[in-house]
């Protein structure tokens, strides 16, 4: 295969990482916590779509919308039940450990419901491929939709955060919760909204991921979740463009390493690059230097 083909695959996988990383980074930015269950919400989204399509015969687009709604409710509920009571806990480790617990809980529920065997994902995206240079480079419909979705989500989120009233409220909560409350911003509501957006994006990521790699298991979300977390840190946790660039770079590095170096050490290379980036720039590519308060 040619370099361009690998590059395209890398950008496509990276776009999925980017969409997941956006959820990580927004939740971190607003709630100051790492939601390690985020990856598993992806898996839930994938199963919901799969069940709706195979068992209920719901049309593809509708199934995706329902999965987004289900994941949104799931995300809000997880935050309310598992994280909110711990928000004032003296150690941030409490909520981190809870998040890991929620992650296993979701995986085990899926295991109980669907078993450990991989289920073949169905075609949701039925678009023709594009062919360039007499078939030297073929871009599948899934890849096109993935990259487009990533760009659209990025643009919409950036506009939302920077141009809308609610977006400004989010930035205010991210910087100073008490001061935000003094403006009349409902901090709990803002955090719920953040989880809602992140989880809806996770559902989209689940569909895109399983369209490209069409096997769903209870652990489908785990590794992409961790990689997306790496991508978010890589780009600068808390930064939306950072999550985007971080995700795409990560996908490209992963696929190129697999192609040209070794598929066994590809993940090691990915994490190695992260370590180098953090050594050179501890806040990540787009991370803000922590500002001193006057």
């Amino acid at each position: 295969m040619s370099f361009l083909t690998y590059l395209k695959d890398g950008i496509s996988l990276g776009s999925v990482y980017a969409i997941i990383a956006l959820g990580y980074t927004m939740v971190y930015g607003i709630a100051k916590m790492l939601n390690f269950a985020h990856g598993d919400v992806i898996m839930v989204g994938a199963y919901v779509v799969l069940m709706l399509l195979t068992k209920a015969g719901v049309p593809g687009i509708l199934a995706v919308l329902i999965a987004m709604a289900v994941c949104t409710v799931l995300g809000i509920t997880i935050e309310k039940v598992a994280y909110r009571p711990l928000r004032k806990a003296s150690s941030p480790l409490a909520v981190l450990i809870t998040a890991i617990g929620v992650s296993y809980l979701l995986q085990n529920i899926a295991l109980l419901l669907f078993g450990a065997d991989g289920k073949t994902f169905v075609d949701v995206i039925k678009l023709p491929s594009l062919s360039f240079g007499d078939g030297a480079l073929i871009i599948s419909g899934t890849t096109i939709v993935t990259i487009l979705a990533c760009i659209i989500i990025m643009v919409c989120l950036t506009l939302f955060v920077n141009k809308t009233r609610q977006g400004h409220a989010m930035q205010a909560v991210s910087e100073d919760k008490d001061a935000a409350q003094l403006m009349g911003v409902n901090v709990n509501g803002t955090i719920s909204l953040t989880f809602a957006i992140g989880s809806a994006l996770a559902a989209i990521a689940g569909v895109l991921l399983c369209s490209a790699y069409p096997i769903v298991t209870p652990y489908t979300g785990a590794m992409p979740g961790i990689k997306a977390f790496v991508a978010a840190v890589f780009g600068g946790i808390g930064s939306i463009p950072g999550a985007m660039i971080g995700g795409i770079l990560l996908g490209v590095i992963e696929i190129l390493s697999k192609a040209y170096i070794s598929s066994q050490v590809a993940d090691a290379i990915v994490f190695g690059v992260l370590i180098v980036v953090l050594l050179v720039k501890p806040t990540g590519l787009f991370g803000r230097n922590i500002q001193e308060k006057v």
Partner: protein
Amino acid sequence: MAMLEVNDLHVYYGVIHALRGISFKVDRGEVIALIGANGAGKTTTLQTITGLLPAKQGSVIFEGKDITKIPAHKIVKMGIAHVPEGRRVFSQLSVYDNLKLGAFTRNDKTEIEESLNMVYQRFPRLMERKDQRAGTLSGGEQQMLAMGRALMSKPRLIVMDEPSMGLSPIFVNEIFDIIKVVSESGTTVLLVEQNANKALSIADRAYVMETGEITMEGAAEDLLHDEAVQKAYLGE
């Protein structure tokens, strides 16, 4: 009936008993100064009034309504704005966006525009720097922004926590001039200050706090000339 009534307020930080049953009142149109040494409980008092801290005992009554248990984000809408200690502007947002957040609870577009113009008129520096990120403003400018932001909610009562802290004398004078203007335009002011001299010179009445209790109260003028107050807070 007083505009704000604080009755027998007790507040704890864990086991630390920070407010030990304080009571005071603010009448409509007054400028009230709350003075006292570091750690007396002035900030705690303001934060309890605006809902950032829970009261263990006692009540806060604003315009006849018990607001003791109302969460902070709902209190702004009821008519109290809080200029917090240390300014706490949103450093990543522009001056303009900070001001717009001050009006977060309001929906009347044209009236918000009017408030914005009023704030720019009172703080021309903010107008000149409206697209600048708030974190890049000087300390004095940030204080102006914090005050402008509070005024954007169109409060009937504004509580300010040490607005002159860390500012050069010129800025201090400017800030106090603006407090006078705010008061003259009909907003009631509850002012916490280390700069007791200045605060007493613009206040109608004042309360003196010491380790979580109110130890003295009276007309600002009387306190300004009180020997004990002069010794403790006016550095004479």
